[in-house]
């Protein structure tokens, strides 16, 4: 939905400053701007188009500056403000789609003289063209739109709908082959214009674009799928991978078993070692015990030997003469007592002789006398020795006897013998005691040795050795299996990577295929919908156009005085595919004989009606609720047709803003239509229409000396001091309006 709310024009050609507020009343949507020919109707249209489309909306080299402006260095500013409401089609407010917003396009430009050589050269140029796009906030303030004005205009006021928004009726007749003055439009241009209008308003052009783009995408997806798919090796690689995974599982199982076995071995080993340690602790004692036993044995042997020796000594002592001595004690002692003095006195000379000889050898006597050779004492001693030598054998015998009895006398002492005996006996007892202790020790050692299980230790050691060997073997197996597993895992990783890449390609291929399929389904849907719309809805458009045409052509009393076909001669109108070009549409007018009449065979008024019927029907069919600013819409139409066209336009257009002349509104039927549908009315009066001669139809009074067109609020049968024309005051039905 689109509706204009306000149009303000400043310094645009013949307009000084005018403000028009078209009706937005849905029940009374018609706005009439009455303006005689040359009062600025077309200029008004161009001002609106310029506001919407800028330079593109103007004819070439169009001067939009005020007519009264003389080129000067200052220049003159021109602006047009177009305020309109739209129901949120702008995607800038996507979150509020469907809500009605009010926009303003403010377009302005400054016209300055062009750089010229000649002083009378009136060429000009425009600078500083600006376009603002504002949106009204709920609180009434205005703010610029984030998107550019041109984008919003393209969205809300598309160029291809310009003829449906701001209609120059002469240009619109191009749909039907042009006006009498504009028959130079080629058939191709007419076809193109008609086709564009139909495709734009029915949305077919969007379908076509979308279909074309989807077809392209479908092909792209298809190519992508074909490139990605087609890997024959993938299955073989997949089988290899499956085998590797099985191998991996097997190795993992074996490693698990081996690890478990190794753990068991280690547990057994640990247990055996603990047992062994326990046994060895005992065994360590065993070694000590054996050592002690060996020591015990040695000691026992030595003690035994010592005891035997003691026994032998004791026995020997008992077997010697020493036993005799105590028995002959008295005799022995007596003998000794007898012999001792002799001995002491030297009467046992042998000893004494030996002593004296030794003195001679020493050269000194015990009394101190010199016994050296040559001394006087020596010869006496030598004489004595010589005498004693004869008795040496007897002396020796006495000496021996003395020694014997002396010795025996010593031994005859009973205490010495008892002591000796006690001593030996004590020794013997000690040895016996030692032996006894050694025996006890041995017993203890034997008992303790009996507790130690040597075979068990041997077994434990054997077992430990065996377990060690097994554990070593197991560790070796485990290491080998783990290496193998690592190798397999590396292969799995590498192969998986390759397979995954190819699977991704295949998935991409599958995805691309799916996308291709979806794209083709959408193309198919768009084709079918497009065909339906194109056929059915175009047929409906055609039928609607015909209905409207018939209504506008109703009650035509007679044809125009024109050699070309008038409305009555046209039996059927509508839209059809162009002969020879299925992609294009054209309007047709068919006579009662079923023959299509080319535009040149149809008079101007009929072509205008045809075009108007087409425009209105297309807006109705496409539900395009937009304003229609139309200039010279009813031109060339006869009374009934004019009335019908006015009524049909007012009744079927969302916001008709019609620029009409007095002649277009001369009958009461038109006035009734305006009274029925009219919501706003204005009159444009060109001050150049003031004539001193006061001919009928001239503007009565000059309000503004400049050549401007003034606007007032007078309706079709009203006049005021600005717009009054000669004869209106006297004409029935006209009233004066106070400004």
């Amino acid at each position: 939905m689109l509706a204009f709310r306000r149009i303000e024009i400043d310094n645009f050609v013949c307009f000084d400053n005018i403000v028009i507020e078209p009706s937005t009343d849905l029940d009374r949507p018609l706005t009439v701007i009455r303006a005689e020919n040359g009062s600025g109707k077309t200029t008004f249209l161009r001002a609106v188009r310029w506001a919407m489309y800028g330079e593109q909306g103007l004819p070439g080299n169009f001067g939009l500056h005020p007519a009264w402006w003389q080129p000067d260095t200052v220049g003159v500013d021109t602006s047009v403000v177009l305020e309109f409401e739209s129901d949120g089609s702008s995607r800038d407010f996507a979150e509020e789609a469907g809500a009605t917003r009010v926009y303003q396009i403010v377009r302005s430009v400054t016209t300055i003289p062009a750089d010229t050589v000649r002083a009378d050269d009136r060429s000009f140029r425009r600078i500083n063209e600006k376009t603002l796009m504002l949106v009204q906030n709920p609180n009434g303030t205005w703010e610029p739109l984030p998107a550019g004005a041109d984008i919003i205009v393209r969205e809300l006021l598309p160029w291809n709908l310009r003829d449906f928004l701001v209609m120059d009726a002469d240009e619109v007749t191009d749909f039907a082959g042009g006006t009498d003055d504009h028959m130079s439009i080629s058939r191709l241009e007419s076809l193109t214009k008609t086709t564009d209008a139909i495709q734009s308003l029915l949305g077919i052009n969007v379908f076509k674009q979308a279909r074309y783009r989807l077809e392209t995408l479908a092909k792209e997806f298809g190519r992508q799928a074909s490139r990605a798919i087609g890997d024959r090796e993938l299955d073989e690689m997949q089988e290899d991978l499956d085998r590797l995974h099985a191998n991996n599982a097997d190795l993992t199982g074996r490693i698990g078993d081996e690890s478990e076995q190794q753990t068991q071995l280690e547990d057994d080993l640990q247990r055996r070692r603990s047992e062994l340690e326990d046994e060895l602790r005992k065994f360590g004692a065993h070694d000590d015990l054996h050592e002690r036993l060996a020591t015990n044995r040695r000691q026992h042997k030595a003690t035994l030997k010592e005891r035997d020796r003691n026994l032998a000594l004791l026995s020997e002592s008992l077997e010697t003469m020493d036993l005799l001595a105590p028995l002959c004690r008295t005799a022995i002692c007596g003998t000794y007592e007898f012999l001792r003095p002799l001995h002491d006195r030297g009467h046992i000379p042998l000893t004494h002789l030996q002593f004296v000889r030794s003195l001679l050898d020493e050269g000194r006597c015990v009394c101190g006398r010199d016994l050296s050779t040559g001394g006087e004492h020596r010869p006496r001693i030598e004489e004595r020795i010589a005498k004693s030598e004869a008795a040496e054998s007897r002396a020796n015998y006495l000496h021996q006897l003395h020694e014997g009895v002396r010795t025996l006398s010593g031994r005859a002492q009973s205490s010495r013998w008892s002591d000796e005996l006690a001593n030996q006996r004590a020794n013997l007892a000690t040895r016996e005691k030692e032996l006894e202790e050694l025996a006890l020790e041995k017993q203890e050692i034997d008992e303790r040795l009996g507790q130690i299980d040597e075979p068990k230790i041997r077994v434990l050691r054997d077992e430990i050795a065996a377990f060690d060997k097994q554990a070593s073997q197991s560790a070796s197996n485990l290491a080998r299996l783990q290496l193998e597993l690592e190798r397999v895992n590396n292969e799995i990783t590498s192969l998986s990577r390759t397979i995954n890449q190819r699977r991704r390609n295949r998935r991409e291929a599958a995805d691309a295929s799916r996308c291709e399929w979806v794209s083709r389904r959408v193309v198919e849907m768009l084709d079918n919908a497009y065909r339906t719309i194109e056929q059915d809805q175009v047929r409906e458009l055609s039928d609607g156009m015909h209905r409207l045409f018939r209504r506008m052509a109703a009650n035509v009393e007679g044809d125009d005085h024109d050699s070309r076909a008038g409305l009555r001669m046209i039996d059927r109108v509508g839209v059809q595919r162009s002969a020879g070009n299925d992609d294009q549409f054209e309007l047709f007018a068919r006579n009662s004989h079923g023959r299509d009449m080319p535009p040149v065979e149809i008079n101007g008024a009929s072509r205008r009606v045809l075009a108007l019927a087409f425009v209105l029907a297309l807006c109705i069919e496409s539900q395009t609720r937009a304003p229609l600013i139309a200039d010279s819409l009813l031109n060339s139409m006869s009374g009934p047709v004019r009335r019908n066209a006015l009524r049909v336009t007012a009744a079927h257009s969302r916001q008709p803003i019609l620029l009409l002349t007095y002649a277009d509104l001369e009958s009461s039927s038109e006035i009734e239509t305006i009274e029925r549908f009219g919501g706003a009315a204005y009159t444009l009066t060109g001050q150049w229409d003031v004539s001193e001669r006061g001919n009928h139809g001239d503007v009565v009074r000059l309000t503004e000396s400049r050549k401007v067109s003034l606007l007032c609020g007078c309706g079709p049968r009203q006049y005021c001091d600005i717009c009054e024309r000669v004869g209106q005051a006297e004409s029935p039905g006209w009233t004066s309006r106070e400004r």
Partner: protein
Amino acid sequence: MVSNLDRIFREIGRESERVAAEHDLQSDELTELVMAIVDVEDEHSFRNTNVKQRIKTLIQNFAGRMKNGESPEADSKAEGDGGDTREDDR
């Protein structure tokens, strides 16, 4: 601004129902897809957009949702040779 939206929506909806019934799809989603494409194309008519990529993304998203079980027929067509059962098994 696309005119004739009501009629377009009606025709697209009709087509969606037909296609959805044939291929066991959700017609609402299909309608939404096509209308989104039409909207993207329409926006491109007045504003320079990356229209091709946007439409491609719409298609891919829809195809992705299909892949999650909405259209076995589409999947089998998409797979061509009946698909990789081993992949499916995995």
